[in-house]
């Protein structure tokens, strides 16, 4: 299973890590990288990578999105949905041409975001994006694999009819080789603890794999390792929280909206959790071997020095995470059944470690292991379905 860097703000951290051998490619973010700058990047950064076209909102020129030739606002000011009737072919051409010019590994068909998808959503998506994109690729003999971007809304997981409708649509395009899945995350907690949501996600991925599609999952956090048991082709790693959880706010040009800086956190592969650094200070006071709960990396010695000034915008905790999580993903067994058993064993071990910590440190629900029993239950339920 591959690991892609979901890039965004401070994409240089991802690029530097990738050039140091961490991850298998990058998913580039137009709102954060000027189109010409991306064209100028060394091909080594792009040949195993792909673009997230980010046409989620047609009218939002967030960040550098307007520098991309396929951005609808460049074709017509105040571009709106009815304009897609006349402009879909042109957008497809410009979008394909730009991706081809960068020589990415995959060509990615854009998708739109709706608060609530209209009943015609899939028909429109086929008409406005899939068909013109695929026809242009075929007509120009472009020999690259095509990925279809799909935002999976929670209702598309929980409602069986909607789930089947989405799966039928995704698997109905002959020219499409795979899917770039984006699971919309509306949860308040930092880890996903919803049994049904997680089990349905595994089922969703499984159906796509049964249909011989490549499955690339973007915007994943720690749950990516849980998704690995459904055998996707890749998951993603990202620095800031909005790159590890998809929400449309990131693509909206909201000025003067109040922003609260999160506390810095450190990921531990032994705990499957990002721990608020203030708890690490408490652990240091109360647990003699507190450092053992955290993985070694070239960044760890610096972060554990007393004078290290923790801040959510510092690179070390994220680069540490890229290194640790990439290793964690790369160490999972190739065979599905072995992968499941190994993950169950590791989760049980994490639960035991949390008991040791919580004997003396009272962690809150975003730093403790409260997601782990749910994950174990999800794995057991999924395993039972595989056995039947």
């Amino acid at each position, binding site marked *: 299973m591959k690991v892609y860097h979901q890039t965004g703000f401070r994409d240089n951290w991802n690029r530097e890590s990738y050039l140091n051998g961490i991850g298998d490619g990058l998913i580039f973010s137009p709102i954060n990288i000027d189109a010409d700058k991306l064209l100028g990047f060394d091909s080594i950064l792009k040949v195993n990578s792909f673009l997230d076209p980010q046409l989620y909102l047609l009218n939002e020129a967030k960040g550098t999105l307007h520098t991309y030739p396929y951005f609808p606002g460049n074709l017509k000011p105040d571009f709106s949905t009815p304009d897609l009737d006349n402009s879909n072919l042109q957008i497809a051409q410009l979008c394909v041409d730009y991706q081809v010019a960068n020589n990415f590994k995959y060509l990615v068909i854009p998708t739109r975001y709706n608060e609530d998808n209209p009943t015609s959503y899939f028909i429109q998506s086929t008409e406005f994006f899939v068909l013109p994109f695929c026809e242009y690729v075929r007509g120009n003999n472009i020999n690259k694999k095509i990925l279809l971007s799909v935002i999976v809304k929670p209702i598309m997981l929980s409602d069986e009819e909607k789930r089947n409708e989405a799966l039928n649509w995704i698997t109905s395009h002959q020219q499409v080789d795979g899917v770039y899945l984006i699971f919309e995350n509306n949860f308040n907690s930092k880890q996903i603890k919803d049994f049904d949501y997680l089990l349905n996600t595994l089922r969703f991925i499984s159906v796509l794999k049964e249909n011989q599609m490549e499955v690339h999952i973007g915007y994943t956090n720690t749950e990516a390792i849980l998704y690995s048991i459904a055998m996707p082709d890749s998951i993603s790693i990202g620095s800031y929280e909005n790159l590890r959880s998809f929400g449309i706010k990131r693509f909206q040009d909201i000025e003067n909206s109040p922003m609260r800086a999160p506390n810095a956190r450190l990921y531990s592969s032994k705990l499957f959790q990002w721990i608020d650094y*203030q708890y690490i*200070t*408490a652990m240091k006071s109360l647990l003699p071997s507190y450092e053992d709960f955290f993985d070694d990396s070239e960044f760890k010695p610096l972060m554990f020095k007393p004078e290290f000034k923790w801040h959510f915008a510092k690179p070390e905790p994220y680069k540490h995470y890229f290194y640790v999580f990439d290793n964690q993903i790369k160490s999972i067994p190739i065979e599905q059944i072995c992968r499941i058993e190994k993950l169950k064993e590791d989760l049980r071990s994490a639960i035991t470690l949390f008991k040791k910590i919580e004997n*003396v440190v009272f962690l809150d*629900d975003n730093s403790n292991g409260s997601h782990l029993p749910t994950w174990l239950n999800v794995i057991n339920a999924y395993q039972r379905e595989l056995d039947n």
Partner: protein
Amino acid sequence: MFNTELEMSKLFEKFLKVNFGNSYLKEYQGLFGVPDFVFYSKDDDEVSIISFELKLKDWKRAAKQAFRYKSFSNIAYVVLCSKSANSALNNIELFERYNIGLARFDKESEFQILYKPALSRPFSDTLNQKLVNSIGSSRKKSKNCEMFFRV
């Protein structure tokens, strides 16, 4: 019974002033969590910090918040209305384990300590110093603060 936490907070503030002095900060931000009250006591160069989290319900959430305050405080207390205090009392071992104070406070300004924690060093020197610096040269006087902790 208090109708709101605001009502509880106003009465508790009055209670603090009358019985322990006016050396406190209210809802001080920028630490690890936002304690309802941070009470301080100066003894020469030594500053002792006692943080309070007031709640009408959800004692466990309050205890988690109070544990955070131990990052910058010598003592952290959960203060509950009588009804919630009874639920918390059934789980007193949790307060003992984490050395978090537990008290009951009601509308008649009756304050009863249910678990008195031991004085301990804050986990984070940086956060503690930040708070001490903001208290700075305050001349506000405290009294009776020894009743909040075991020596």
